[in-house]
């Protein structure tokens, strides 16, 4: 078994470290670069959010103009979605998926590096939009605002469009790479039904990316043509259709929601069994649920367009409700995994449990939106803002921190500090609820989104102020994490291969793993090969002595 500190110091020839990182095709180094880059954008997007929340804290325009405000909320969303959550989950998958498969690298290491550097190129284009008038279009880029240069003459919009197209193709190449890696690079014995759940969610996410991103790329190019070459895709005067953009955008935009959250589901499904000392309850049901969410994700795009009056409401409402079924299966399985388990509340587990509690709220208030009459009332209000933030902050961000605390010892060879981790968790947990729960009430009271000011007589001041306090608490919660990473990296490495007593193959090699990942692999008989090896007779491994089969809690 590949534990051991034997590799410490046995490095191959050392070129300049900077050059080595810039030219690397190692999936682990590329994964780390993805994570560091996307965390920088997490903080940048967070600063934009603080700008938005500060302006809204009290009625009246205090320190932003309406034009600046319009740029902030759009760029906040673009950065958080395309430059933080997506590259962060891609970075995690880059590092972890080949390890969990027992592979030496991704299927196409150079294309992997290409994807990363295309991300950087796209990010530069998007950020440079600020220098060219910005892009006051929101992340949805609705036409005619974005497609008609009478409304948005600034070059910033074009830069945003180009940046998103570049990011799109980077993600398509990444998705192809993950799919081929998963289909072709699995260790001997690892059938599809023995893959860790994080690999499964990465696979389904990649399929969603592959089929949805080209559609929005085509749409973005259509807007670009309308803006720059006199095209008429979205101009009714030329025979075009503004609603077409909404169809094209949401045909991508809804699968995108699952692109953001399925890897998070995967992380939670890795963390819960390890810290509950039980196998994942209903492994196969979980796979089916993941695939069902992916498939249904392509049938519900027009529930974002109920208010247009241009879509067949019962169809899209029905399928939207249907998605609650596989998601419910997941919730049930997570709770059943914990039920009767030997629970350990280390920081990754705290974030995972926090995810379950808060994502449920995001799921429930989303189900309300599928009720067409209710949707008509709260469309474009803070209810929607609250919903997306319960799904993406309480969902994706909690899972990302669970993943960072869980896999940090693998990546850096030492554990993050538990006390600082708990401070961060509680700050983030309280901050998230303080920031986003009041927005439900504001939405029900009719406060619409994308406005920089509201009347002092509207009665929204207290809830908005609470929400702003929560936003600053979320921002504060990042500081203990940064400090934690800083002080931990200054400590000597522990090189513990398997600090959490975990189940999957990434823990069967040294921490950090050598460039070639594995010296040897355990035999694979189930989705928990390392567990089977460590506890012969308990799991699915070959039984050395006649032993009693004891499922469930092994104390």
């Amino acid at each position, binding site marked *: 078994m590949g534990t051991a500190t*034997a*590799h410490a110091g*046995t490095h*191959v020839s050392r070129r300049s470290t900077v050059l080595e990182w810039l030219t690397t095709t190692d999936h682990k180094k590329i994964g780390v670069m993805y994570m560091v880059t996307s965390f920088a954008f997490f903080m940048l997007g967070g600063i934009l959010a603080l700008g938005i929340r500060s302006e809204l804290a009290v009625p009246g325009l205090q320190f932003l103009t309406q034009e600046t405000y319009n740029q902030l909320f759009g760029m906040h969303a673009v950065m958080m979605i395309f430059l933080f959550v997506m590259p962060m989950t891609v970075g995690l998958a880059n590092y972890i998926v080949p390890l969990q498969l*027992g*592979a*030496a*690298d991704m*299927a*196409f290491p150079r*294309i992997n590096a290409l994807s990363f550097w295309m991300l950087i190129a796209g990010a530069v284009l998007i950020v440079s939009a600020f220098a060219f008038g910005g892009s006051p279009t929101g992340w949805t880029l609705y036409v005619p605002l974005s497609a008609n240069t009478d409304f948005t003459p600034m070059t910033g919009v074009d830069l945003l469009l180009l940046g998103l197209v570049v990011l799109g193709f980077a993600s*398509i190449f990444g*998705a*192809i*790479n993950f*799919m*081929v890696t998963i*289909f*072709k*690079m699995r*260790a*001997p014995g690892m059938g599809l039904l023995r893959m860790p759940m994080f690999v499964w969610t990465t696979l389904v996410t990649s399929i969603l990316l*592959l*089929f*949805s*991103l*080209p*559609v*929005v*790329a*085509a*749409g973005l*190019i*259509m807007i670009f*043509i*309308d803006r720059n*070459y*006199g*095209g*008429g*895709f979205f*101009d009714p005067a*030329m*025979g*075009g*259709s503004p609603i*077409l953009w909404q*169809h*094209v955008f949401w*045909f991508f935009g809804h699968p995108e929601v699952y692109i953001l959250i399925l890897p998070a589901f995967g992380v939670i499904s890795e963390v819960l069994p390890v810290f509950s000392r039980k196998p994942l309850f209903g492994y196969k049901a979980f796979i089916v649920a993941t695939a069902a969410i992916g498939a249904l994700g392509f049938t519900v795009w027009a529930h974002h367009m109920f208010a247009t009056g241009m879509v067949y409401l019962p169809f899209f409402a029905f399928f939207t409700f249907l998605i609650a079924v596989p998601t419910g299966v997941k919730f049930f399985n997570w709770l059943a995994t914990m039920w009767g388990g030997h629970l350990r509340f280390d920081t990754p587990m705290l974030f995972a449990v926090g995810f379950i509690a808060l994502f449920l709220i995001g799921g429930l208030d989303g189900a309300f939106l599928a009720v067409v009459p209710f949707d008509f009332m709260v469309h474009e209000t803070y209810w929607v803002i609250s919903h997306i933030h319960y799904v993406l902050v309480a969902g994706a961000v909690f899972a990302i921190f669970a993943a960072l605390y869980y896999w940090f010892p693998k990546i850096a060879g030492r554990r993050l500090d538990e006390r600082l981790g708990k401070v961060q968790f509680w700050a983030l947990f309280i901050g998230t609820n303080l920031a986003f729960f009041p927005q439900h009430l504001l939405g029900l009271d009719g406060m619409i989104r994308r406005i920089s000011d509201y009347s002092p007589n509207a009665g929204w001041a207290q809830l908005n102020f609470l929400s702003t306090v929560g936003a600053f608490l979320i921002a504060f919660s990042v500081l203990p994490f940064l400090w934690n990473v800083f002080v931990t990296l200054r400590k000597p490495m522990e090189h513990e291969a398997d600090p959490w007593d975990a189940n999957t193959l990434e823990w069967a090699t040294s921490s950090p793993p*050598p460039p*070639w990942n*594995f*010296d*040897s*692999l355990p035999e694979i008989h189930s989705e928990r090969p390392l567990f089977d090896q460590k506890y012969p007779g308990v799991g699915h491994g070959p039984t050395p002595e006649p032993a009693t089969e004891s499922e469930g809690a092994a104390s």
Partner: protein
Amino acid sequence: MTANPNALEPQMSEELIDSGHDAQRGGMDPALLGMMLFIASEVMFFAALFAAYFNAAATLPVFPPEGTEEFISLFKFPFLPLIMTAVLLTSSVTMQLATNRIRQGDRTGMNRAMALTLGLGIFFLVLWATDYAILITQDDFGIDSGVYGTLFYTLTGFHGAHVLGGIVGMAVILSRGLAGQFSARHHVAVEAVHYYWHFVDVVWILLVTVIYILPHLGGGAA
């Protein structure tokens, strides 16, 4: 397995040594699978553009606009779309020929057929540019001529760009073939480019059907 000079356990099984690679597992070559998946995403890209076309066809009272059938036509001199179709269909045949040759291990035959395909591809682009020039100068039909013009140029333009991509791919294959690479066993790049070229051909057939033939069937429009 690729060089692993630091491996500590020389006794590990052959099967494990192979675990980083996949060729011995059978099934499709990874690079070919990658190309198939890429083509799948390209299908979605063109599907979005076609969706925009069908959306206009379904919502506008008159589509294509009156008068455009004068010059967006298969039967208007010099019959460029027909010739382009013939050229591209022929090139698919020669591409298949090239692939069959290298599957037999006949590299010279592959080079000849690939050069022919490359020439046909370039000829297609020349005809494509000529068609554009005629439409823009004689018929005053540009990308800003209403949504129909935008759709026509975007659809055919992106197809042309994909033809160009295929030409680049064929040029790489040809230069590698002339340098003595590829054999009956090792020619995955040829297979990948040949799939891609057939895909580009299929898109063209769909384009011709949708743009030139469909409006004249059944009197659906106007």
